[in-house]
């Protein structure tokens, strides 16, 4: 089986469109989105028809919970005043430009999705299985903590997003934790592409895979970022957000980064 897993879209409907076409072209049988449809980018309501038309199975991120339930902020839990200032701008923009019907749809999304693929129990969540807005960074998450999540939530593979940077860790008993990355903004690495994840099981696993039961491929997505930047400017979104789209370096929401991930960026 081959599954495509998308992380936070952050209103980046152009990247979502490219990722959907790329995943279909590669033969993905089912598409999933792990939540946070809104934030950061322009025109929130352009995301939903893409998700619906391509039968993307969606779960709820913290942003979706906030927008769907008319909350006052995105629940990212930032502690830095500058981060909160910019987070509030994108939250208010997204809330005002999300239709009531889309808000209702976001409100009713499930917080997790479980499936079995070729004998592997897969758990799809947003931040972590235990808390939607928990950041699981590669450099601040011990392997035995992930093992304890896999035990507690009875999963062979846990897929999550939320932190914005893809990574994976092999766990005890052949289990795996995978952060699928995000489609909404680049990964703070100076490249303009965004990322999604393909998971192959059973007969779809390549012969050269070192794990015959599960193969994870992180897929870079090139898309028309210049068009997205132009749309963001036309919507008067902050130039700091546009800069991230055009340069691949994060300019906001930096204080939650651990030292190792922060060092990789420019700011």
């Amino acid at each position: 089986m081959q599954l495509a897993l998308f992380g936070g879209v952050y209103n980046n409907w152009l990247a979502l469109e490219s990722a959907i076409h790329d995943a279909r072209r590669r033969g993905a049988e089912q598409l999933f989105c792990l939540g946070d449809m809104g934030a950061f980018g322009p025109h929130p309501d352009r995301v939903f028809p893409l998700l619906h038309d391509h039968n993307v199975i969606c779960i709820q991120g913290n942003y979706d919970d906030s927008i769907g339930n008319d909350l006052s902020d995105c629940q990212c839990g930032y502690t830095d005043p500058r981060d909160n200032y910019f987070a509030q701008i994108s939250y208010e923009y997204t809330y005002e430009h999300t239709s009531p019907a889309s808000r209702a749809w976001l409100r009713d999304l499930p917080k997790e999705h479980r499936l079995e693929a070729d004998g592997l129990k897969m758990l799809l969540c947003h931040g972590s299985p235990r808390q939607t807005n928990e950041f699981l960074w590669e450099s601040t998450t011990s392997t035995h903590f992930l093992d304890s999540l896999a035990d507690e939530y009875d999963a062979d593979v846990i897929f999550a997003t939320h932190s914005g940077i893809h990574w994976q860790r092999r766990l005890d008993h052949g289990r795996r934790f995978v952060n699928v990355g995000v489609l909404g903004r680049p990964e703070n690495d100076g490249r303009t592409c965004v990322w999604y994840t393909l998971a192959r099981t059973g007969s779809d696993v390549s012969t050269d895979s070192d794990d015959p039961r599960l193969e994870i491929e992180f897929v870079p997505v090139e898309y028309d970022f210049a068009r997205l930047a132009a749309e963001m400017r036309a919507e008067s979104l902050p130039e700091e957000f546009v800069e991230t789209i055009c340069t691949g370096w994060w300019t906001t929401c930096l204080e939650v980064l651990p030292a190792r991930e922060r060092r990789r960026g420019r700011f």
Partner: protein
Amino acid sequence: MVATHDTSDLDAAPVLVGQEATSDSGPAPRVVLRHLDELWFQVSGTLCNLECTHCFISCSPRNNSFGYLTLAEVERALEESVRHGVKEYYFTGGEPFLNRDILPILEKTLEYGPATVLTNGTVLKPEWLERLRAAEDRSLYSLEFRVSIDGPTSETNDPIRGPRTFARAMKGVELLCRHGFLPIITMTRTWPDEHDAEVLGQFRKVLAQHGCNRPRLKVLPRLKIGAEQQRTCGYTDTERVTQQMMADYDESQLVCSHSRIVTSKGVYVCPILIEEPDARMGNTLDEALGPNPLRHGACFTCYLYGSICTNPSSSKRE
């Protein structure tokens, strides 16, 4: 009911089980440990080269009521922590870099998970940081330094932390930056809350002048216990968490819902309360997993401000 466990530490306080602290508003609310996310180590006990007037555990060069942890003691707890699925490790004191084992302790810890060390920044040596740079580079995990400096000038810092400590700590920050670390500067708020933005802005400029061009800042509330109780005042009887206050409260904001601390005298509930005998929970992590009654004035500060001990990357706001 008060029950005691036998302890092997001669000077350890008895473990109190099932004791209910009461106030006018009823018994203290009890907080369940949801998961042991952070394991702390009181790695240098109460020994510090400084004697800050606001220290919440009265650390000083002479206070040896809690001693250094050895590498073997830390290794034992690290091994025990695997079974509990601990996510991150924190090291505090006193001044952790007074402990001669601190380098091997941090090196060993980085084999298990991410490590954060809380230091006053005044005793760091280049050769230590070279070794720790290599240890972090070998590891999957981050090594974070939190450096305590109480304000952006010697005028705000030195009256609290001691003469010339601002200049010495800033040299420590420069050294950390030169070795590729991105220290988190933590400051205890000894100014009105509404001055935060101004203080932080000034601090960013000062840090940039010292080669720290990606400043990470964390403001901590004052805890009115230990030396700070003498400097200003302690908690009043009404500054306690009550059952009523817990209605609709996000308990994950409380350190005791996700942390414990290993000391030379056993395992305590949190890094703030080690001088409170009733905060000792057992000899081992297994013995320290029970619920914690919010009996103390410091619990009131933890309740009000939330997540005061963890790094911003591990914020737990629900």
